[in-house]
């Protein structure tokens, strides 16, 4: 069935969030991220870490302000942890 535009958008958003957090916040690649599940979901925790760093509202959700920052061109060095 053709993917509905909303589902396509959500997939792209998840992809953007996932790669940003993997590149700059040490989200492990093998974790199956889900934006919706409750509990200590690693992607939600990392999202909160990124939002705290940038002084955004720490919601754990990919809101507009968060996605706007994720779309900005930037340095490839992670914002947290070792880089060598």
């Amino acid at each position, binding site marked *: 069935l053709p993917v509905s535009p909303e589902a396509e958008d959500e997939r792209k958003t998840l992809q953007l969030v996932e790669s940003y957090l993997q590149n*700059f916040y040490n989200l492990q690649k093998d974790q199956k991220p889900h934006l919706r599940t409750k509990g200590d979901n690693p992607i939600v925790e990392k999202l909160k870490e990124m939002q705290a760093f*940038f002084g955004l509202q720490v919601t754990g959700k990919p809101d507009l302000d968060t996605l706007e*920052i994720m779309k900005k*061109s*930037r*340095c*490839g*060095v992670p914002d947290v*942890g070792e880089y*060598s």
Partner: protein
Amino acid sequence: LTPGNPKWKRNDLTYRILNYTPKMRQADVEKAVQKALSVWSNVTPLTFKKVDDREADIMISFAYRDHKDNSPFDGPNGQLAHAFQPGEGIGGDVHLDEEEDWSKDGRGYNLFIVLAHELGHSLGLSHSNDPGALMYPSYSYTAPNEFLLPQDDIDGIQAIYGQSSAAVQPTGPVTPQPCDPNLTFDAIATLRGEIMFFKGRYMLRKHPERAETELNFVSLFWPKLPSGIQATYENIERDEVLLFKEDKYWVLRGYDIAPGYPKPIYRLGFPKTVKRVNAAYNDETTGKTYFFIADRYWRYDENKKSMDHGYPRKIVSDFGKIGRVDAAFQKDGYVYFFRGTTQFQFDPRAKRIVRQMKSISWFNC
């Protein structure tokens, strides 16, 4: 600072440019590298010597996609560059994404700005969450000739290598905090229902319906505008904002800088003795614009496009104890004058000050 506090054991470091980008002249790349290194050598005891024929501490190169350092680039935009903390081998090296649109000005990505940031990593700095800092992760353009290393970055690098040997220690711009009680403004104007507070290279943007205040670089919206705007006012009827710096002014039409600007302020009718404007506001009910210079003010007729006769007059003669003015704007029939950390609400009908507040009263602190 980078976890583990890596730093170079020596202060006299070497660097080498391994290759160049076809998007810039080689001489411009070398100039950008030298200027980026001087950003850090100006504030520390560090020195950088160029070598061409052997391994250097800091190897600078343009790289494509997967370039075998376990951190592949991602094509145009996204990740622009990366660098490695001090150490042997790849330590200290800077890799720039070859596919970016590198430039020596505001087009694409300014090589000098990106290099200065990456060299911060090469020297042991990590990212700062101060949005005005050079070590902030996201790219933002500052004209190289206007660039001043922010205080946040000076503090960071001097924590690693100590101060420079200069007799007078360099200081840098500090990012304005909306609720800093000592915050003062260079210029303020309304803009289509919002209020824009100018401070150095920053603009605080306040929308009446939004609780938080947005902090941006002026260059984010208008790369051609210089920092340090000194006076602004909105002409609501013409949907224009005029911005003044020294003896020139620009016009914003809607949100875009109108072509053909800047123009000299003398076109508005100022005498040559006037070198800059301190503040301005437009009274939309009368079509008159008031320009404040030192302790005097002029009145300009927007319809006749000329200064009214009988001016300049003393500010104290008509606006009371306000005296000199840093910034001013009109909103909902009142004029708000700013001087230092004090704000005066002036009622032009009653011709008197009706309230006195802190300058930051608009930021819901």
